[in-house]
């Protein structure tokens, strides 16, 4: 079943086309990641899907509701974690969560229970009673994220949820997201390729308002990245100069049997210190598809 569907979705800002004829189907329970360089149109897409921005053209359906004509129905089922950290500065963490809970007409008891669970999961409990303007940037970020989760929405829009977080927090969030994978429909944007690779069912790579590649992480890597290669480091590498490709004081071998490689190199007089198999990465895919130039 389709949870989110866009049809020829377009947004123009004074002549600049931020989102260009985007047609996309995200299945129920799927975790879909939108990757793309700065200014690709990811946030603009999310803002249209969450009824914050009217499209210039096109249609949006969220759980069967037309987002343009029935925004209130859509807003009831979505949770949005904006790209910027957005919290109410003079409230404490409990009160921030309570506010969003109340706006979703949750009862007091459920709000309390959910808040407790979320604050604990993201390690905010200790400081939960401090006014949030006294929290660190990362703590604020974590609160901003769980404010999108408090009402347990069926659909989540997470715009760079782990931006600026420490590795521990990032892992806690990944773990939490993995917990309801398959259950909730999640649209995620991120610039951490590792994150997208680990979490996503499918990835759409966006550039200049268009989806330029769309597949599972594995298929994308298979299709766009160079083959896996073997990197050997050690002493007397110069002895095999000309026979092998040498880059950054390492020997790069595109394919082959490890045992044969070790034997051959030893014979040539190379003392091997380490051998690493380089897996294709999503980052390579990303660069391959969207190029190396900076975006304006």
């Amino acid at each position, binding site marked *: 079943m389709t949870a989110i569907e866009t049809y020829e979705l377009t947004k123009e800002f004074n002549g600049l086309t931020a989102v260009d004829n985007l047609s996309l189907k995200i299945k129920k329970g799927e975790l879909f990641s939108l990757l793309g360089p700065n200014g690709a149109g990811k946030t603009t897409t999310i803002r249209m899907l969450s009824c*914050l921005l*009217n499209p210039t053209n096109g249609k949006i359906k969220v759980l069967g509701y037309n987002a343009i004509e029935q925004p209130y129905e859509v*807003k009831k089922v979505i949770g949005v974690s*904006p790209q910027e950290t957005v919290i*109410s500065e003079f409230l404490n963490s409990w009160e921030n969560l309570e*506010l969003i809970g109340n706006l979703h007409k949750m009862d007091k008891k459920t709000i309390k229970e959910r808040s407790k669970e979320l604050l604990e999961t993201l390690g905010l409990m200790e400081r939960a009673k401090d006014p949030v303007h006294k929290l660190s940037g990362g703590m604020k970020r974590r609160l901003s994220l769980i404010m999108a989760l408090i009402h347990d929405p069926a659909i989540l829009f997470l715009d760079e949820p782990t931006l600026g977080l420490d590795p521990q927090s990032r892992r806690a969030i990944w773990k939490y997201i993995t917990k309801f994978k398959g259950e909730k429909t999640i649209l995620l944007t991120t610039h951490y390729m590792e994150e997208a690779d680990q979490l996503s069912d499918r990835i759409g790579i966006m550039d200049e308002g268009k989806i330029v590649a769309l597949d599972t992480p594995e298929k994308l890597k298979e299709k766009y990245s160079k083959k896996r290669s073997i990197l050997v480091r050690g002493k007397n590498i110069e002895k095999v100069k000309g026979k092998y490709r040498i880059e950054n004081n390492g020997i790069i071998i595109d394919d082959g049997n490890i045992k044969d490689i070790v034997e051959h190199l030893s014979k040539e007089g190379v003392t091997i210190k380490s051998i690493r198999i380089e897996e294709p990465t999503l980052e390579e895919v990303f660069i391959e598809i969207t190029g190396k130039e900076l975006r304006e």
Partner: protein
Amino acid sequence: MILALTSRNIKEIFRNKMRIGFLLGMPLAFMLIFNVAFGSSGEEIMDVGIINLDDSEISTTFIEAMGTISGINMISYDNEENALKDLKDGNILAYMGVPEEFGDNMMLIWNNQEAEINLKIKYDETLPNTASKFISIIRTYTLQFSGVSIPINIDSDPINISYEKNLVNFFAPGIVIFGLMVLIPTAGGMITHDKEKGFMERILTTPVSPTQILLGYSLPLFIVALIQIAIYMGAGFALGMRVYGNIFLLFAVYMLTALWCIGIGMIISAWAKREDQAEPFSWIFMIPVAMLSGLWFPLEGMHPIVKTIANLFPSTYSVDAARALVLKGSEFSAISNSIYILVVTTMILFLVGIVLFKKLVVK
């Protein structure tokens, strides 16, 4: 949902020391300046008039000894007319008349015979503190002088001091209304701040309607306004303001003022993109409006164009209605036009505010 937002905004206002300090400090500061300018401090020496209608030695002694009381400075008058004129001009705060038979009657009392003495005191009603201080001084003094308490006849008919002279009453409504107009930059700034920081978008991803959102901002500011009005009224009374009309009606006029101010702030916030646009713009709008709508000085005698412009601002109707209530004790019927205009203006401002918010903020 309105309540959830209201509760959030109340916390945001009251926990933000800058904001609440400004909102409640402003009225207090105004009143303080006001107090220094027009109020009388307790240590001041009172100028009082004395009219001696008795030629006896006793009355002369009575008056001479009275002159030594600290805190009052006596000025003698030959007749009541002159004393009344000085009282009306504000040269003296009160005067006392010593009756013709004062000496003879005093003698009779000292000889344990029946006699009646009435000291007549007339004072400026708008300064009740001063008057009561003066009366108590006289009471103590007559008791010391005569050994018996002499009935003091206090003439408490409001003496007809022309109202330009009655500064507290004249200026209080303008000050309160200007003070309430601080709600314009506050409402404008608060909503714009939340727009700028993305908080408004966050709220807009939840199923809340624009009307509910705007009410969620207006209600807390209205509560702040009630506190402000109470402070202004309290301070006004402490300074000797007297409301001749219905005080509840006056309260209602001030509440309407708060509402139209919030409405204007709302409209500014729909248009402004950043807080640092909304606040200065509000002030630039407020100052000339305050000047041109007779908040600080009466518009009588001004160029007709000024009056025509003034009629465009709701503040003109607020201050007219409030001043009529405070100074003239007008009935509802006399100010009903102003009140209707204020009610309609407030409704229009809120409607425009909501429509603009829907158009410009909820895209």
